[in-house]
């Protein structure tokens, strides 16, 4: 009898505890999101309302910050740098895919000898800090007239993302059922046909996630872009570091700029949310 009374009570206690922990999770989530919300809100405030203490949260909204960022207030337009970033990111992502898909095929579907060693070699290149290779790359670019050229960034970003892409693609391709490919091979389909007609369609979601992650890393990159580009090939992050030199109020403009430049990454990141872990952990975690 006592047992029957005790159980619902314990159940209720656990419910309270669950709701409480849920509330804590919400609070932590909001706390972490706060700077992002603050950035977006401030970007829609006028300069005079943006830099106030205490902050004016309910100030009227305006797109002046954005207008300013895109050149209404004078100063260099951000468009060339945005297009350079887009070119470098998309270009390198395409080359990464062209190199990584066949490589992953040779590592997952028809594994070469010592394929795990090759896989770990790819990964080990990702463990070295990029800054250590910066000087020789700079000297090479200077001597071959490749400085301030988007193609140089395309090549560097390709090498930066290739290991991640190979690891991710390998784990996606490992899920393609071997029976289908054997059947195609017996029917006389060549490697290119097998890749194009069987593997790519099956692995499409994986390819999409891989490209989004490569895109994010290339878009974010700043060190190489800063040292190796100047006026012509400047990318968006470099533009961003350069434009906060002006005097006067600029917080709304900075927030607008940060929002615009982060927008592609936010979109790509949320689109790849489910596969994000796999990409970030270099394919080690599913």
């Amino acid at each position, binding site marked *: 009898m006592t047992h029957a009374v005790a159980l619902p009570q314990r159940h209720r206690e656990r419910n309270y505890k669950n*709701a409480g*922990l849920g509330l804590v*999770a919400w609070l*932590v*989530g*909001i706390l*972490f*999101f706060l*700077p992002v919300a603050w*950035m977006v809100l401030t970007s829609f405030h006028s300069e005079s309302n943006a*830099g*106030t*203490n*205490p*902050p004016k949260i309910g100030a009227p909204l305006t797109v002046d910050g954005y207008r300013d960022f895109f050149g209404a207030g004078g100063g260099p337009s951000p468009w060339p740098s945005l297009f350079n970033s887009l070119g470098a990111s998309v270009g390198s992502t395409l080359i990464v895919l062209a190199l*990584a898909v066949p*490589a992953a095929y040779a*590592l997952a579907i*028809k*594994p*070469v*000898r010592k394929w*795990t060693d090759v896989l*770990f070699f*790819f990964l080990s290149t990702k463990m*070295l*800090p990029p800054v*250590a*290779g*910066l*000087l*020789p*790359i700079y000297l090479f670019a200077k001597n071959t007239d490749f400085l301030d050229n988007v193609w140089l960034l395309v090549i*560097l970003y390709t090498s930066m993302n290739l290991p991640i892409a190979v690891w991710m693609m390998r784990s996606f391709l490992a899920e393609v059922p*071997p029976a289908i*490919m*054997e059947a195609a*091979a017996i029917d006389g389909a060549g*490697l290119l046909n097998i890749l194009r007609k069987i593997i790519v369609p099956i692995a499409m979601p994986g390819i999409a996630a891989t490209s989004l992650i490569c895109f*994010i890393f290339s878009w974010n990159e*700043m*060190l190489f872009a800063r*040292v190796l580009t100047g006026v012509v090939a400047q990318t968006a*992050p470099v533009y*961003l*570091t350069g434009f906060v030199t002006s005097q006067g109020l600029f*917080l709304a403009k*900075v927030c607008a*700029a940060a929002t615009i*430049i*982060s927008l592609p990454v*936010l979109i790509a990141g*949320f689109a790849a949310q489910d596969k*994000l*872990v796999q990409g*970030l*952990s270099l394919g*080690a*975690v*599913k």
Partner: protein
Amino acid sequence: MTASALTTAPPRTAVRRPGISPRRAGWIRRAPLLPALIFLIIVTQLPFIATLVISFTRWNALDPRHRGWAGFANYKEVFTDQRLRESVLTTIILTVSVVLISLMIGLGIALLLNRSFFGRGIVRTLMIAPFLIVPVAAALLFKHGIYNPVYGLFNGALTGFWHTFGLGNNPPQPDILTVHPKIAVEAELIWQWTPFMMLILLAGLQSRDPEVMEAAHVDGAAPWQMFRYITLPHMRRYLELSALLGTIFIIANFDSVFTITSGGLGTANLPYTIYETFYASHDYGLASAQGVVVVVGSLIIATFALRVVSSLFTEEVGR
């Protein structure tokens, strides 16, 4: 290495066409791999070899006539120069504190997100957002929008709090960037990297065997016992993996230091110092020696990281 033990794992489809020698078949098999492999060797390995060579030379671009062999002089300078020793120490402090703190917060949040509650998907999405802000943009946001002593959100919130609760007209207005520059950089990095840790740890939590958890529960294990004896041992490798990957990324961090403090006030870490030696002082030999030191440090950590990845990988392939 444990990895090589796996080489024979997947069965080979031995449909060899007649008339092709085994050697040629091997190359056909290897062909799709070669472009990526060769590309990566050229673009990532050659520069490091060049760095190694340059590190033994005396080469300042502002003084090209005195270029020559330097032996270990650059390395001696790396380890004896006060400023450089400080930047080694800063790198270690920065990396260790950011990794440990974001790892602990990340584990806490992953545990919270691993239970079901109303709006869990939304909270997860909110949590990921900091990681999806371009690092330079995030650093700028923290420098101007949050840390600025006059109009930053931090001091603004303090003022608002003081006014709302009638605590007087003199709220504390710390200048975090000047007084605690290291903490300012660390806090920004922790904010950006906690989601990364959280995502990997959450994936780890979700890969626990539900049957084991159920059995422990039925056997009357207390929640903390389950955490201590089932969750923690299972999570060990995920904790190691996220810590090591975080370490590798944060050791190489340049964007935050460059943007928030421009390496001033004792926040210059090695990547920033290398950048400065090369970009501002044009001392190519010294910059290369510094680069080699960072590489060696990273390689030590990378060895451990690769071992962890390898053990997770063995489990996956063996499954």
